[in-house]
């Protein structure tokens, strides 16, 4: 099993979710994060005080998939999340050694 982690623009979340659901992926975890890559932040001024805001709001999605599904999942995310402008985000794929569904105690592929 692999964990596909994608950091995307917040307003793309809904499209990505839809794309994954359409392919039959049944679960996902989302968190609000901030980050920067090529795309940098901006400056905010509050009365006299200037602050550099280096981080932009992003959404991190994590989808655990069977190893054989990784490519489909990644492609679906790329297609749905792309605007073609900097800040579109990144995808990281990492290995999951073991999975458990808490409710049933099922493990690994059957737990996905």
């Amino acid at each position, binding site marked *: 099993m692999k964990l596909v982690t994608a950091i995307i623009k917040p307003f793309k979340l809904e499209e990505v979710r839809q794309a994954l659901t359409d392919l039959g992926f049944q679960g996902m975890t989302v968190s609000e994060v901030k980050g920067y890559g090529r795309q940098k932040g901006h400056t905010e001024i*509050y*009365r*006299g005080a200037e602050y550099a805001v280096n981080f932009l709001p992003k959404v991190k999605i994590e989808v655990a998939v069977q190893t054989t599904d990784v490519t489909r999942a990644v492609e679906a995310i790329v297609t749905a999340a792309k605007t073609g402008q900097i800040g579109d985000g990144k995808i990281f794929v990492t290995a999951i050694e073991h999975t458990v569904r808490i409710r049933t105690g099922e493990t690994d592929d059957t737990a996905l």
Partner: protein
Amino acid sequence: MTRDRDSSGVKTALATAALMLAGALPAFADAPVPNKGDTSWMLISSALVLLMTVPGLALFYGGLVRSKNMLSILMQVFYTVCIVSVIWVLYGYSITFTEGTSFNSIIGGFTNTFLKAVKVDSTVGTFSNGVVIPEYAYVAFQMTFAAITPALIVGAFAERIKFSALALFIPLWVTFVYFPIAHMVWYWAGPDAITDAAKAVTAAGTDAAKVAVAQAALDVVNANAGMVFKWGAIDFAGGTVVHINAGIAGLIGAMMIGKRVGFGKESMAPHSLTMTMIGASLLWVGWFGFNAGSALEANGVAALAMVNTFVATAAAALAWMIAENVEKGRPSLLGMVSGAVAGLVAVTPAAGYAGPAGSIVLGLMAGFVCFSFCSTVKNKFGYDDALDVFGVHCVGGILGAIMTGVLVNPKFGGQGIFNYETGKVDDFEMMKQVIIQCKAVGMTLLWSGLGSIILYKLVDILIGLRSTVDEEREGLDITDHGERAYNY
């Protein structure tokens, strides 16, 4: 229960009529009674000034700090209101608004502690001959002024003072700085005493001896006033007493307590400009009680003060917005509401004296001047007046206090200065008045400045002013109060 005290004892229609006349024009009778319209207005004005303070000021300030210090700000403001209002009843009202002994030019006396001399039918004069309001209403109204003034200070050293230090500082400051200044600027014998004494002088006719006696009596009446009042300084609702006073005390506190950890390096962006906007709006709404209530009557002057308070604020908000747009390229909400507060501050001493057009000019000036100060001048000096108490309240207050001497000029649509001895508005000498206003400003800066230095030092020696670096990092909400503001 004596709720009908104001009618009891009146037994005939004639007596009633007499009493009513007295009520309207008490110069002709012994005991003026309050007009209920005035009473109603004073009561609601007091409520409005509390609204300005909690939640108004507390939110205006609170929104500007980081969320880890939100409760500490709210607590400091709320505590200030509580401790000061209790002190006000205990001895504050007495030493501010009761005739003192040898130092009556500077501070009042102790004869009215615990409000022991105040009854439900006690009255105090307003600024019109023969018009009075219930003394309890005056006590309440002035109590709210005593409460908000020290609360303004806390913004200057926000996010780093120890609560225990503040808890000691506030009662000391209000006692040794606020009460004397309020006494010096606002304590006087009242219109009827002066007018009556002046009439006695006239009545004395040409008999030199009689005139001398009457004149001496008039002099005594005139002498029974605070020092700054006697100079002839005018301050409608507290430009000196409230804003310059608190502003300079704030600056000194900010400098003596030192900069916040991380100042200039870490982001200290306001945690909720929404709260700041709510606070600014409530300040505006409540300030009508503050300024228009300072007329002490529900009359045309109060209405004028309201219009002035409205448009000076609006003009200052627009001025700040425009200045920011020109200089930074984008007008911010924080800028706009800061401008509004600057306008409110500046129009405070002028509210019942200037005309509406003059107030718009004053507001525009306040917006530009305070903007420049907060966004440029301040950064040059590098002190950490966290919420710009000095840049808005002291700078705006000085501008307003001095400009009041200009805008009161009938030539500029102002009301002029009424002379209770002659019964009419004096010929106006602008330069003279401006100089007097400057003297009043200087006196306030000096007294409050020196007094504050001494009191901060004292508190620092006794219990220490400042939180530790770790406490500051963690946030005063947890370390001083054991709570967090938000658990979403």
